């Protein structure tokens, strides 16, 4: 649904708030919609229905209060709406916020460049793990010295 897609993109910068922190890379709203479409493919129809309903509710609220859908509001008005939404304090509200924010949060904090800034350097870890293959051969608790049959980086116990 186009309005949902546009809303997911429009909501993304407000959910992430990354502009406020210098080191964090910029959010890419398209990542959120790409992830959501993959997620809908693998998930249950109810997840798609609930997410769609959450974004439609947000738009309905904006239409009633501001006369425009969320993506058509200016940045300041969008920020004010999202501020109200994020300020709600109840378990139900948390579920609503979860549905609105999960695509953005998941797509953004899965990015390798973002995680690297936070100290989780996937590229380096991948390289390290790639050099090290634990095999099931051998006994437990023996010194880990590579033997003649072991390829470089392979650990044999």
């Amino acid at each position, binding site marked *: 649904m186009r309005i949902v897609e546009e809303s997911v993109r429009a909501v993304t910068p407000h959910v992430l708030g990354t502009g406020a922190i210098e080191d964090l890379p910029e959010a890419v709203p398209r990542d959120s919609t790409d992830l959501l479409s993959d997620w809908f493919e693998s998930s249950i129809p109810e997840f798609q229905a609930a997410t769609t309903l959450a974004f439609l509710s947000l738009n309905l609220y904006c239409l009633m209060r501001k006369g425009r859908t969320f993506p058509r509001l200016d940045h300041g008005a969008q920020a004010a709406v999202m501020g109200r939404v994020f300020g709600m304090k109840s378990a139900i509200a948390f579920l609503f916020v979860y549905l609105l924010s999960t695509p953005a949060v998941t797509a953004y904090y899965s990015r390798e460049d973002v*995680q690297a800034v936070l100290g989780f350097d996937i590229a380096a870890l991948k390289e390290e793990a790639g050099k090290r293959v634990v095999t099931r051969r051998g006994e437990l608790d023996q010194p880990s010295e590579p033997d003649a049959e072991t390829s470089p980086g392979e650990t044999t116990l």
Partner: protein
Amino acid sequence: MIRSVEEITGDLRLSAEVVVIGSGAGGATVAKELSEAGRKVVVLEAGRHFTRDDFNFRMDNAFINMYWYGAQVMTLGSPVFLLPQGKTVGGTTTINSGTCFRMPHRVLKRWHIDFGLWEIADEELDLYYAAVEEYLFVQKCDPEVMGKNALLFLEGARKLGLSGGILSRNAKECEGYGVCCFGCPSNAKQSANISYIPDAVEAGCEVYTGCTVEEVVVRSGRAVGVRGRFCGTSRGAAGPRLEVEADVVVLAAGALHTPRMLQVQKLCTSSGQVGRNLTIHPCCGTVALMDEEMGNPKGIPQATYIDEFADDGIMLEGGTTPPLGIAMLLPHKGRRLAEFMSEYPNFGIFGGMLSEHCSTGRVVPHPLDDRRHLIFYTLRGEDRRKYKFLTELMAEIWFSLGAKSLFTTSASFAEMRPSDLSRFKRQKAKVSDFMPSSAYHPLGTCRMGSDAGSSVVMHTGETWEVENLFICDGSTVPTSLGVNPQMTIFALAMRSAGFIDDRLEALACRTRR
């Protein structure tokens, strides 16, 4: 051989002595034991086969590719729990933290007294546990790699006089990459996909992936095979059909799918227990903002535990998690989320679970699509107080360690300061205050027992009503275990494999006569 769905070009008809549905802790164990005993075994797995080259440290990829329904399986009730389950070769063992516990003796005693399962003796079960532990290299986490977070929390708990220790895991030469739940990138975690399944395959077992079983074929009260379908190339598209004739059928699809399959076919339902008695371990996490760096995410996701209140059904287990795990737990969004996430290196994280409690739920087929299920579960009575106590306990420990702020799953204390703790403790445990959280370890939906009127399977794992139909997964475990269940599922499946082998021998003798 492990065959992927792409290799299947047309409808398939196979015959085997045993067909196993599911390749998790239960199915993989049965497949390996029987294949190595010289039996012809076919395993059918709904998920795909992934190897360490596919495990790319990314939570989003893992959710979408290796978890049932993109990790969005939810319970219906209050509060709402996400119940993530593995959908890949190795089942949930491929995406769990690898925590290994034997079942406490008090729980087995309860099985004896309440369910008449005297045949499962302490000494016998201990032998199976020992065999599984040796095979899976179960050992205590290495303090050098477990990460600062886990050790610090344990130290804090001990200073408060609480008992706890270092967890045992099925991991060999673990380097603490912190991503066990998204597939171990070094093959250190001895999940079924790199242990039982490869050994079963080496012994001649055939594994078909991307295959959903639609029907257990029953003739004259005996299971004689299964029918199913491979998944198509696009969502909803039907792939080639599959039919397997077998002397024994083993259902090992887990405590959510196994009962659904029986209910849809109205098999073994006369006791009224199929799908009922669901126990799960409702969890809640706490994220603490510390003054010092916590070494995230290098470490082990679950490395230490606090068991001071284990007899009351309260267990704390924890370690570390990548940034996304923290971002999902933080209650804030927008600028505050970014501000807090920039403090990621200083976050401590620990989780708690209601490990034994009286609430139970049930699983039923989805009324609009019987290939899926609905899960009903609500925390009742005393369990609500215990669930809230999990957060109180973790808060107490974090604040004693100097945490500045604590993020919790309580709606009214989502961000808690040290001065809030006494007010939080005084607050009544209300379901409306519990934010949606996650739960793990579904068990009990096809429970084992000593009479056909109140249970689905006998102690051997065979169903009371359909001969040669065995269930070897968490669904047969009749009560909550008080601990993480994978070792018990491995051990019970190993035990059942012996009975299945005996049955095949008896069938062969009957044929020879």
